[in-house]
């Protein structure tokens, strides 16, 4: 597949502070790409670079093999759904959606048809005359999406579009957005700091931290093969333990040797060892290599979340069965459950 957008060595700084540090990203046609990362990591800035609202200090933006780094936003075949919707308050729903078409001076008939189609797509039929200020958050959201999509952009940029919605509405809109993306076959670049949202909706997830990309990959790969401890922890709560690589497929954790499946590290190299809470099994046998005392048990709906204190680490464990608080348990995990990562710099 062809790349629609490529960011090459993008650097952005505000007031001498580097906000994006050498971003390289290729986005394929019709892909649902999510930029995921904690607040302030540069997600919005990346989106604004693609939208044309800021110029990078260096680097280039390539759109369908053309360099568009210097092109102003109104000349780009890209539309944005803004974080707070940015609907035009003096226009009604119809006129908001028709805005881009009117700018392009399309004939009235075509405008009516396109807007009606779009409002149908986002389930807002019959809302044409409504004042946008009197709509609910979810409805405003859908107007914003219709307003952007009606222009049939090659790429749609969405900046935390579901951030202001309650959980139930969020879930509904997630499915809705995915449906729209697939039926229109438009590339979506989606920003969120919600890892679950990123994993469920995307074809590709881009994990960012402090203005750098940490990992790019399919949701499954990001989840199962996180490249470093930050990604592992951000994608889902994890146990991150200091370890030392003894040789290929053998690692020392908490003073004990464990078999693992990773290789290619130096001998005696300090590493981060990541073990997911759901991969840990608790046994009643307190003679295991690692054992501890159950400090707390919390019911989470589907599973119990437990904290088990061993001599040098507090383990987070998810399981459908829970031992008593205060009981001695053994902590078990297999070679497949151990993920070895290079120590993060800094």
């Amino acid at each position, binding site marked *: 597949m062809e790349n629609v957008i490529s960011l090459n060595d993008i650097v952005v700084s505000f007031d001498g502070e580097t906000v994006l540090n050498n971003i390289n990203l290729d986005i394929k046609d019709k892909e649902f790409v999510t930029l995921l990362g904690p607040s302030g990591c540069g997600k919005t800035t990346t989106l604004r670079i693609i*939208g044309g*609202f800021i110029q990078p200090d260096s680097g280039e933006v390539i759109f369908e093999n053309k360099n568009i780094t210097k092109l*102003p*936003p*109104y000349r780009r075949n*890209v*539309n*944005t759904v*803004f*974080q*707070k919707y*940015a*609907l*035009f*308050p*003096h226009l009604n729903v119809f006129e908001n959606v028709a*805005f*881009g078409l009117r*700018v*392009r001076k399309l004939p009235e008939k075509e405008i009516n048809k396109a807007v009606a189609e779009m409002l149908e797509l986002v389930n807002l039929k019959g809302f044409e005359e409504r004042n946008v*200020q*009197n*709509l*609910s*958050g979810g409805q405003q959201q859908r107007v914003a999406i219709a*307003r*952007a999509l009606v*222009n049939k952009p090659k790429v749609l940029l969405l900046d935390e579009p579901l951030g202001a919605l309650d959980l139930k509405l969020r879930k509904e809109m997630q499915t809705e957005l995915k449906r729209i993306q697939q039926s229109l076959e438009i590339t979506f670049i989606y920003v969120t700091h919600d890892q679950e949202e990123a994993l469920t909706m995307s074809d590709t997830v881009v994990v960012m931290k402090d203005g750098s990309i940490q990992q790019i990959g399919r949701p499954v790969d990001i989840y199962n093969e996180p490249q470093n401890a930050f990604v592992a922890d951000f994608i889902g709560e994890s146990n991150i333990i200091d370890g030392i690589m003894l040789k290929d497929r053998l690692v020392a954790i908490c003073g004990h040797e464990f078999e693992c499946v990773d290789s290619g590290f130096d001998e005696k190299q300090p590493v981060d060892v990541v073990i997911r809470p759901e991969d840990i099994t608790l046994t009643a046998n307190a003679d295991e290599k690692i054992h501890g005392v159950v400090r707390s048990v919390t019911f989470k709906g589907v599973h119990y979340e437990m904290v088990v204190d061993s001599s040098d680490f507090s383990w987070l464990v998810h399981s459908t069965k829970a031992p008593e608080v205060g009981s001695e348990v053994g902590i078990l995990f297999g070679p497949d459950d151990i993920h070895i990562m290079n120590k993060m710099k800094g």
Partner: protein
Amino acid sequence: MKKLSKLYVSLVLLFLYVPIFVMIVFSFNTTKSRSVLSGFTLEWYAKLFENELILKSLGNTIIIAVCASIISTLLGTLAAIGISRMGKFGKATVLGINNIPIINPEIVTGVSLMLLFVFFKARMSMEFGFTTLLIAHITFDVPYVVLNVMPKFRQMTPHIYEAAQDLGCGPFKSFIKVVLPEIMPGIISGFLMAFTFSLDDFVISYFTSGPTSQTLPITIYSMTRRKVSPEINALSTIIFVVVVIVLVVKNIMERRSLNVKKYADDDSAEIIE
């Protein structure tokens, strides 16, 4: 307690409005007396409209007020646009400077403008008259326009300017199509404020007008120095009524734009619940 506060408010209103009420009543009095009411007449109003000096200065006042408020609305709005894009420090500084002419005693502004015009008069063939008066009025009107327009930028829905560009409008078109409608209420109230201030300015006009461009307040002032005619009562009554109408219109418009905002806020509060 409630009764007391009501009494207090009525007293304040009484002090404010009794003099005006008395003036209005006496503008309909048949004799020239200012203590005895002897009967109802519209004579003074009729005379007023035969008095050429008054009519001419009324004309001057309106022309000046219209010109000055239009020009200062333009200048002030442009200034507000610029200021709204400044950094925090620049914004605070410029707004501070903007406020100085408002706090500054009018007499200082008046005298300094007069000195400035004298300076130019000596060098170029510039006469005191319409131009000097217009410049002076624009000078004291602009800060009020800026002050009325600025808050609209803060209240504006964020990112709509960028959204318009995103949808294909160039910078200028984006401004006209989405920003201007949003700041319009501020521009109109700024215009009305500038207009009323121009209409009744005395001190600054006194120092900057010439013999050919006397405004109404100045004419009234010179009339009271000779003999006080009830025509002045009639004239002042008319001015008062006009100003009240302008203020009422302005308030209604503000109330309306506020109501729309409030309605939207109520709505979102409901959704959060």
